[in-house]
């Protein structure tokens, strides 16, 4: 018998909560309203992970025991990943790091962590996506291409929908602006609101925009029509409820000068109301930052030591793999595929324990692989949306494996 349930999608950090899924005989038959990313998430792995120790098939209990042994024998283990796990699994991971007295970091370390840090510390104003839908009249996609990374972003929240104060939606009530180094899919939708800047010039463009907001004529080292910046500044100043969607293009350009982003937001808020929302990618990337912040006061790159927790660049996943870590527990990530080649080469020489539902490049070199159920499909829990809102996520079907949270709790038992 087929049953239709409402489901919260874990395909990306938008966590769309209006998905209709038809399930029959513990199989997903049809999915409505989910984009191609959500659909892919539901379809699951190309190849499911199996428990292995040293590349040989093993019993799951033996794999868990071996994982615990590696972590206990290591002098400086690193716990990494976490963005594809529920809050509950992330909390278990933080507990494991505290028990081991080791370093814990997440994919946000080289993603949106830097902007989320500013938001959680209160230096950059933010808002929710629901407020964006109801109120926002000017939205700036800076170094972000949601039409590729978060397909329903513009239709569900930011541009196309009719909101409480934006009854005429995109047609008359909203202005979309894209600032990017190339004409992305999002930039095409923004039409005349697209501002193309040369790669690496985001800081200079932002300074120019701050000047333009103050009525000064900006001076730029690259060829750009100054009149257009002045027009852009005028559009931003007129906003009743503006929002900057900070993509990785902006974050990577501005990471050395994050104070400038706060200065830019302050400059905007002198004239109008502007908030910033980081374009988090993985479904619970922001959750890890919130959970770690709650437990330690830091959002990432944390080392537990003598009952306390310290944070710093040297505890980032990159620095730890370069020089420090002698064992790595990877949860729900594929660092061999996603990290720079020089780092993944180094990682290959360190004992790796992988907890993941799927086979991937990291599973091919992992010393221990422990399959887990897929969060949001086979196991439920809670997660934090890209705007910081807590969301409940439910399971759809019964899986064959334990949840990542349960596996980590088993490792904690072994370690203790």
């Amino acid at each position, binding site marked *: 018998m087929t049953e239709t349930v409402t489901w919260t999608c874990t395909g990306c950090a938008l966590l769309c909560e209006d998905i209709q899924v038809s399930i029959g005989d513990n199989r997903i038959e049809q999915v409505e*309203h989910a984009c*191609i990313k959500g659909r892919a998430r539901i379809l699951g792995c190309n190849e499911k992970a199996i428990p292995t120790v040293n590349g040989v098939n093993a019993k799951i209990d033996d794999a868990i025991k071996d994982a615990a042994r590696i972590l206990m024998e290591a002098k400086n283990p690193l716990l990494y990943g976490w963005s594809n796990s529920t809050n509950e699994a992330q909390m278990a991971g933080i507990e494991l790091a505290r028990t081991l007295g080791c370093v814990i970091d997440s994919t946000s370390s080289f993603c949106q962590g830097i902007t989320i840090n500013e938001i959680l510390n209160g230096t950059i104003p933010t808002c929710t996506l629901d407020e964006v839908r109801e109120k926002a009249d000017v939205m700036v996609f800076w170094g972000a291409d949601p039409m590729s990374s978060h397909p*329903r972003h*513009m239709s*569900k929240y930011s541009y196309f929908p009719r909101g409480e104060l934006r009854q005429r*939606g995109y047609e008359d009530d909203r202005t979309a602006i894209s600032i990017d180094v190339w004409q992305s899919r999002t930039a095409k939708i923004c039409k005349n609101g697209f501002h193309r800047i040369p790669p690496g010039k985001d800081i200079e463009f932002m300074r120019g925009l701050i000047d333009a907001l103050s009525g000064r004529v900006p001076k730029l080292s690259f060829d750009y029509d100054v009149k257009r910046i002045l027009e852009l500044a005028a559009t931003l100043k007129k906003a009743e409820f503006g929002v900057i969607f900070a993509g990785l293009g902006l974050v990577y350009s501005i990471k050395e000068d994050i104070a400038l982003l706060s200065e830019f937001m302050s400059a905007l808020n002198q004239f109008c109301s502007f908030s910033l929302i980081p374009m988090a990618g993985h479904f619970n990337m922001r959750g890890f930052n919130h959970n770690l912040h709650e437990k330690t006061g830091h959002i990432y790159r944390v080392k537990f030591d003598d009952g306390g927790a310290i944070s710093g660049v040297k505890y980032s996943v990159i620095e730890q793999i370069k020089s420090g870590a002698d064992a790595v527990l990877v949860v729900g990530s594929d660092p061999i595929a996603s990290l720079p080649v020089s780092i993944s080469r180094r990682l290959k020489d360190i004992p790796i324990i992988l907890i993941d539902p799927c086979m991937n490049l990291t599973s091919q070199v992992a010393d221990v692989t422990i399959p887990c159920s897929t969060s949001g499909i086979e196991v439920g829990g809670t997660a934090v949306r890209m705007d910081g809102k807590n969301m409940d996520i439910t399971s759809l079907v019964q899986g064959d494996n334990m949840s990542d949270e349960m596996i980590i709790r088993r490792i904690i038992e072994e370690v203790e």
Partner: protein
Amino acid sequence: MTSAMEIYQLLPKTNCKECGESTCMAFDVALLSGTKRFTECPPLMNEDKYSDSKQKLEEILKPLEGAEETGLIIHEELCSGCGNCVVACPVNVANDSHGSGRGLGPTNNKVIFRVVDGKVKAANVKECRRFGKDKILCRACIDPCPTEAIEFV
């Protein structure tokens, strides 16, 4: 998008009337509107000198086979299921203001566009503003599509 002149250039242009239409241009319009198929042109099918034209016509008319009555074609292989058309379509908004109009998935069956299994699907196409006696050249679903997955022929 296939144009009438593009098709006309590939027809015999002899106005032989064997297809039942008065001229090749009339046959051209019938092809575009979907009331005739190019195989109903006897010279094109039987005479060797038109074999290249026949092949080209077959290629350019292929997308029309999947067209709805309004000429709507959805290229599913390009669609990312973003739902921009679902929320932007004025018919969707009018018939489902608290669902599609607010950015959510459609909450009833009166809408034209809805996303199923990650791809947009069309229904109720007669509701489309491009259909009927008061039709207009609406582009509300075409312009917001980031992948050019929607076109009208």
